[in-house]
């Protein structure tokens, strides 16, 4: 043992890292947001314009990320794709988050029969093969983002609900919850104004890693051929479609793939940063 003590708390680097991680994550995410909002200005080409004379070209001055089999500019598609993928990550998380935290709050707070029914529902959804649900919903409603969001919302809420419920079970016995009851506050006020803000920290952190999962689920759905409608540029679809050229034209998959990974990285960093900030663990 070289160090006298192997239990260092957050040291100087630690405090910097805590803030630094969050800042770097937000910075990266901000970059993507700028790309998405400014796509019409930033993207050098029309993302869906085909050019038969420039098919499958490697990265060059003209097309810095190369072109795909239709001669579409990958860079422009990646930039426009930021719009869709950010939307996927955000909407795909927001609804599960809202539904989950609300249900989890109510179940955890009321306990008893409400909670028992709720927990069975959670068990059912947890045990239900996600893919069956996802594919069925997409089949029922037709492929596309709306179906994807609905499927995500139907399944995704469970994680949030479980997190929040567990927190609520603890928090509702906390003195400040009891204090709120003793002060004559209404249940709704106690649940949503006093307890939820304290219970939600874990969920907010989880939402960040969930955003990554949602992105990857979207990519998996694209791999099975049920992603967004062509010719829309979306990274998952681009990677999935580019699979055909993975050995001959690597740039078609590499750049959208890297974009997914980088966006995932940004979300993870924000999640880490928030976890440190809130003092919660995943």
């Amino acid at each position, binding site marked *: 043992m070289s160090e006298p003590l192997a239990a260092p708390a957050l040291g100087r680097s630690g405090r910097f890292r805590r803030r630094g991680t969050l800042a770097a994550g937000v910075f990266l995410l901000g970059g993507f947001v700028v790309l998405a909002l400014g796509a019409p200005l930033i993207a050098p080409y029309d993302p869906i314009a085909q050019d038969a004379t420039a098919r499958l070209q490697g990265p060059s001055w003209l097309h810095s990320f190369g072109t795909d089999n*239709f001669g579409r500019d990958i860079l422009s598609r990646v930039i426009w794709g930021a719009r869709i993928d950010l939307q996927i990550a955000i909407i795909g998380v927001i609804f599960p988050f809202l539904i989950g935290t609300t249900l989890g709050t109510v179940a955890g707070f009321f306990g008893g029969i409400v909670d028992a029914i709720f927990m069975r529902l959670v068990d059912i959804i947890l045990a239900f093969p996600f893919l069956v649900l996802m594919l069925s919903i997409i089949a029922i409603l037709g492929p596309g983002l709306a179906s994807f969001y609905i499927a995500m919302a139907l399944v995704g809420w469970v994680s949030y609900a479980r997190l929040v419920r567990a927190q609520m079970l603890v928090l509702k016995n906390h003195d400040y919850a009891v204090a709120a009851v003793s002060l004559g506050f209404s249940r709704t006020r106690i649940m949503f104004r006093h307890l939820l803000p304290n219970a939600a920290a874990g969920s907010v952190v989880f939402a960040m890693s969930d955003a990554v999962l949602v992105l990857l689920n979207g990519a998996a759905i694209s791999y099975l051929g049920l992603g967004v409608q062509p010719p829309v540029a979306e990274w998952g679809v681009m990677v999935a479609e580019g699979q055909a050229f993975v050995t001959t034209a690597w740039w078609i998959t590499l750049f959208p793939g890297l974009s997914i990974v980088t966006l995932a990285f940004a979300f993870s960093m924000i999640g880490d940063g928030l976890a440190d900030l809130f003092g919660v663990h995943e």
Partner: protein
Amino acid sequence: AGVLTIGRREDSTTFDPIKTAQNIDLWVFANVYDVLIRVDKTGTKLEPGLAESWEVSPDGLTYTLKLRDAKFSDGSDLTAGDVVFSLTRIRDDKGSLWADPFKVMDTVEATDPKTVTIKLKQATAPFLATLAFPIASVLSKKGFETLGPEKYAETPIGSGAFTITEWRRGDRVILAKNPHFWEADRVSLDGVEWISVPDDNTRMLNVQAGQLDTAIFVPFSRVAELQKDSNLTVHLDPSTREDHLLINHEHGALAKKEVRQALDMAIDEQAVVDTVTFGYGEVANSYVPKGALYYYADNLKRPYDPEKAKQMLADAGASDLTLNYVVRAGDEIVEQTAVLLQQQLAKAGVTVNIQKVDPSQEWDMLVAGDYDVGVNYWTNDILDPDQKTTFVLGHDANMNYMTRYNNEKVKELVAAARTEMDPAKREQMYTDLQKMAKEDVNWIDLYYSPFINVSRKNIENFYQNPLGRFFLEDVVKN
């Protein structure tokens, strides 16, 4: 000698020939079961199979087939009784998917152990070709009765070049050389394994890494790369596959012939060939596949002219045409075609909304007429054009392949061509049909494309005929 391993997209679903309509199944039946009459390597001629010879009565109603001395894989003799059993079963079994084309058979009889006599209700020109269809495989009556339908569908007793030793569902079908095959001398391989490798990339990598001898369904995009690999041979075998754009004739402006013609002119088929098939396809000018029986090579090919198309649409009062384009999810080719056509049609002022749905649902939507356009393809199962013609132009239950195309003259001609027994007259009739279909634009013919397979250099004679049959009995593994 040796065992040939073949990678394909999906595994078989059954070995009961009458219970499936999937190519994935049919293509293996040909290795396991023999048929009375075979289609040759070019896919244009019939040749003797289990039937050594056959005679057709002048009225075209009675077929007399003479069987050769053949044995089933269990060593028992193949007799006329087995043939009668197999053919009547197609027509009469409750679960048969193929009853319709065999309903024309009135009686099937074993006149002696080596002779089968079939009486038809009406003269049918394509009947011999139908007998060459893998679903008309000859099963062992005794084997079927002892094993029962379920077991038989798993480890059938056939009289083909190979016999199934094991079927690992979802993974592979393992075939061994059938020592009792009547042409056993012709077979060099000890066995064959049909292995399911769903991912195109993985399948190709398997062959490249030498872990599979051959792989079928080579994507167009991979051909050039595989051709560069000195260990591999890429086979581009002529096929009867023809891709087309279905048009729903009942939807608004699409009912007008001029609109459909305009769409044909707005589509640059050559660009589809270049982009989607990487140049390995060929622009189609008829619904009959190139090189197939009665193909009319001089049929009209409408030139690509978006300006003119735009004009025609305007003249027909359809200048702001918007089309609902149904796309089958998970099919790379179909999706790519859609993306390309969308852009091409846009040049002629047509707005195309792509609607991607999963395959079964696409089918439903097409049947329900819930679409404007959509790409589909057809590969012939039998060499006679009647089967496809009936489906596409014959006004049968399928509403002319879901297009709702309606032309009484065409309908009558299709029926007449089926019963016409004189080949020369039939050829003329089919030529006329091809012209009429083109004129009416029943659908838009897009392109013909080959079957593309890849094999290691040490594999010889790996060949697929235009109907999809693999001649594994000729394959040599060095």
